[in-house]
């Protein structure tokens, strides 16, 4: 009995320690030298988030927004030199990653959080259930890094990154391109939620030269996507595969019937907007590749992906 109570206390303590009030994550006394809190912290809920970020609030709601806190810091010597900070509680690490993945516009890791983005004016990262955004109207990458690290240290949510990220093969993966969508994966309602990553297919040398002559800025490299749609159970994944087939039959090209014997079901076709696609059902997942040129490349990519998906 005593052991049970102690275990319960331990579990409760662990859980509550990383569910600390959002406001406590804001740097207050431990600020970088010469910096002070100028405004806030101001808390926003589902009802008031519009007041802070206008229409963009809708995107956060799709990712399970719980609440957020906003504050402005400023340099004591130069009051124009400011840092705006938003910390969003997104409910869980998957949703925090999801919203982070929609905001990161290229791979510029800053070395904080579970993954991050840093440039002269902005820093973004996610850690545990939190998504953190910092903005400096005056370019100041170093101070953005310092603030980010400070906040990251205060977050004690130990959640690891969503495991699905690790399913995406590393070879050819465009850094920072994996995204999570809570709905409308690949623009399709029937695919519901899932991940996608962009891969770069290097152009053959001859082709590359040809393209470079026309447009110096383009390399001729082609991009394709791997995607992983997640369903509640395998039957729902099979149903979605059928919907995908129906959609391709109506708007593009689709093969008929199941092409895989045994347990897996698969689909091959051409989507009017995504290009050539191959999709395989594996348990409660649909795994797919879209936008490839050569059949062989698509097949190899998909086979590699299937090996990774546990």
């Amino acid at each position, binding site marked *: 009995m005593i052991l049970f109570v102690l275990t319960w206390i331990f579990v409760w303590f662990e859980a509550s320690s990383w569910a600390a009030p959002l406001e406590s994550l804001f740097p207050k006394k431990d600020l970088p030298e010469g910096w002070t809190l100028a405004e806030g912290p101001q808390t926003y809920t589902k009802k008031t988030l*519009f007041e802070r*970020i*206008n*229409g*963009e609030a*809708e*995107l956060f*709601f*799709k990712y399970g927004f719980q609440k957020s806190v906003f504050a402005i810091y400023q340099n004591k010597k130069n009051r124009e030199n400011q840092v705006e900070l938003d910390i969003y509680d997104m409910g869980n690490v998957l949703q925090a990653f999801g919203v982070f993945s*929609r*905001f*990161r*516009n290229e791979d510029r890791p800053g070395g904080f959080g579970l993954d991050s983005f840093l440039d002269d004016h*902005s820093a*973004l990262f996610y850690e545990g259930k939190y998504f953190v955004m910092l903005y400096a*109207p005056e370019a100041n990458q170093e101070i953005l890094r310092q603030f980010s690290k400070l906040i990251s240290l205060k977050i004690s949510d130990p959640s690891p990154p969503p495991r699905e990220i690790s399913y995406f093969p590393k070879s050819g993966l465009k850094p920072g391109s994996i995204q999570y*969508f809570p*709905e*409308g*994966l*690949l*623009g*399709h*309602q*029937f695919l519901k939620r899932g991940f996608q990553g962009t891969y770069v297919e290097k152009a053959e040398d001859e082709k590359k030269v040809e393209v470079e002559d026309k447009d110096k800025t383009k390399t001729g490299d082609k991009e394709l996507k791997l995607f992983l749609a997640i369903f509640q159970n*395998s039957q729902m994944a099979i149903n979605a595969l059928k919907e995908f087939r129906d959609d*391709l*039959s*109506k*708007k*593009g*090209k*689709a*093969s*008929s019937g199941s*092409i*895989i*014997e*045994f*347990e*897996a079901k*698969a689909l*091959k*076709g051409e*989507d*009017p*907007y*995504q290009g050539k696609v*191959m999709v*395989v059902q*594996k*348990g*409660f997942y649909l795994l797919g590749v879209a936008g490839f040129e050569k*059949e*062989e490349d698509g*097949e190899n990519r*998909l*086979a590699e992906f*299937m*090996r990774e998906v546990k």
Partner: protein
Amino acid sequence: MFSEKIGRRNFLKRVSSALLGIATVPIWKASPASEKTEKAPAVEFRTLGKTGLKVTAVSMGVMNCSDASVLLRAFDLGINFYDTADCYMNGRNEEMVGKAFEGKRQKVFIQTKVHVHDEKKMRASVERSLRRLRTDYIDVLVWHDHSSPNEVSDPKLFEFMAKLKKEGKVRFTGFSAHSHMAPLLREAAKSNLHDVALVSYNFTHSKGLKEAVALAAQSGIGIVAMKTQAGGYKKEKMGGLSPHQAALKYILRDQNVSAAVPGVTTIEQIEQCAAVMGASLSRNNLNELEQYQSFLQGRICTMCGGCQGECPYGVLHTDLLRAVMYHEGYENDSLVRESLLRIHGQDIERCSECSSCSVVCRRGLDVKAQIKMAQALMVRGSERIVRS
């Protein structure tokens, strides 16, 4: 999920062979895209106020869009006006629009936004938008979220926009607003500084806003309606109700609205929205909206079927609730009469005997209070019969 007997290696080999098989064996049964007999929606164009731009009545809010394919589908459906913003997804949203419409720029109108700041920063923001959108002009640039009439008539802000117009970077300008829309629109109608107003406008809004929209439209301001779906909803949370199309039709019935920009995420949603063009608002649509509104407000029964518990006397409470819904929501007397005719006077008497109702609404609707309203309606109905 995975047959242990087959083994992963063999399984993958078979999967791979099967896929390869498809590549070599001509088993395609589908016909080429050009032969598809897809029915295209009727496209309705409206003039965007004094800009003179002919925009599609159903246009597209890009903000929540998950994939460029949705934009391309919208384009194929004939939609020509797209609303994005500098800040959406840290600029990624504008990038998606730019990439999707590269080579199609002359066929679409792009609206984006700028925040009020000092001139240097505003100019930098516009330049960034141009780069991301892969264009050298923005069709409509609007101030992001004005909230006071002073901002709407600020000559300094107007001056900045005028400079951009002169430089050819922006064709038309305006403002967006999420709150206090009516006073802002009235001010805009007076000040004559704006070509376009992007305002939150849907079936839940007041008559006051409708009048302000009319006033602004009459002054030549092109009205673009956003939040037309009243904040979005999940079909499964609403007993299967899907009032997307009804909400859009409702707002487009107001001819003072030049375009609606519903925020869509998927191809299926934009197809659903586009199909609204040229369609009229039916009685069913009105019913859907009433149910949706009551869902939003938790005020009246939506007939969602989620009642918990039963009446011990077997009173069909749903008939009573329906009568209230028709009265409160639809304000439709004939429907109220029809429902009341199905109710036996005895039932109502039985309801009077209970201090509280054993039927519980999962949305927190006070069922007893609703039944009291139904009783009042019955009394009023019988008084009318006596009088006549």
